[in-house]
């Protein structure tokens, strides 16, 4: 697949009622963007682990930002209102933004939910793909996202820089 090597600019509404832009995260040593949504079982299977990572690395300045770009007209479960409700119910500790125009998803080159993009302090992409190697947490043997965050914090290149994301397709507008 084709993903761009630098973080795309964005300015999107969040479930917290505020807009959030790429510039807002400028001081974070690592920025993790995750293409996400509400209705996908793969997202639901992984979201607790994403939340745990966001919580764990918050005090080291890492910012995790989930972005939903799905066509809410065709998939009402992914409407902004539903995002607000889902983030509350799931206890998200990270920002969850609505990319209604789908421009950010296109800029990222996203195809699936969830799909991770890890950027270093210069906002260069250092890892793209899976959270880990199994949606069943007890079966996980490789923690790609965690390893990428650790590497980026250390100023190093992750051992694995790209994996093929597994999940629902991004629901593009027709």
């Amino acid at each position, binding site marked *: 697949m084709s993903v761009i090597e630098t973080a795309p600019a964005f300015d999107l509404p969040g479930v917290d009622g505020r807009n959030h832009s790429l510039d807002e995260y400028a001081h974070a040593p690592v920025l993790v963007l995750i293409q996400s949504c509400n*209705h*996908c*079982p*793969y997202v*639901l*299977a992984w979201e607790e682990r994403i939340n745990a990572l966001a919580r764990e690395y918050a005090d080291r300045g890492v910012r995790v930002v989930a972005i939903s770009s799905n066509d809410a007209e065709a998939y009402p479960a992914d409407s902004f209102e539903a995002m607000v409700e889902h983030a509350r119910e799931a206890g998200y500790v990270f920002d969850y933004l609505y990319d209604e125009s789908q421009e950010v998803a296109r800029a990222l080159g996203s195809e699936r939910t969830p799909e991770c993009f890890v950027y270093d302090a210069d906002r260069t992409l250092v890892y793209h793909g899976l959270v880990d190697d199994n*949606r069943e947490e007890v079966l996980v043997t490789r923690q790609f996202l965690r390893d990428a965050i650790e590497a980026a914090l250390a100023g190093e290149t992750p051992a694995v820089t790209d994996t093929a994301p597994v*999940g*629902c397709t991004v629901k593009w507008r027709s």
Partner: protein
Amino acid sequence: MKIELYFWEGCPSYPEARELLEEVLAERGLDEPIEMREVVTPEDAAALAFPGSPTIRIDGRDVDPEGAQTPPALACRIYRRPDGRVSPIPSRKQLEEALA
């Protein structure tokens, strides 16, 4: 026994669901074929009351009757486990119970 697996190509979980279904069928000594039925359009989904991919019906009965109430959509189907976890495919137990 009529075994149907409805799927939408946009969701990657149906091969895994088929594999699990084949395992359960083999364990039970059943050799009925699995009829693969692709759902392509939202209209198809509505006409077939397709709550997401994959959907498995045994003699027309959904292996997850509660989840079958989800509004029709071309989407990955959500299967909820008793412990609260979520999966994109039915559990082995659901398949076993549906085939009992």
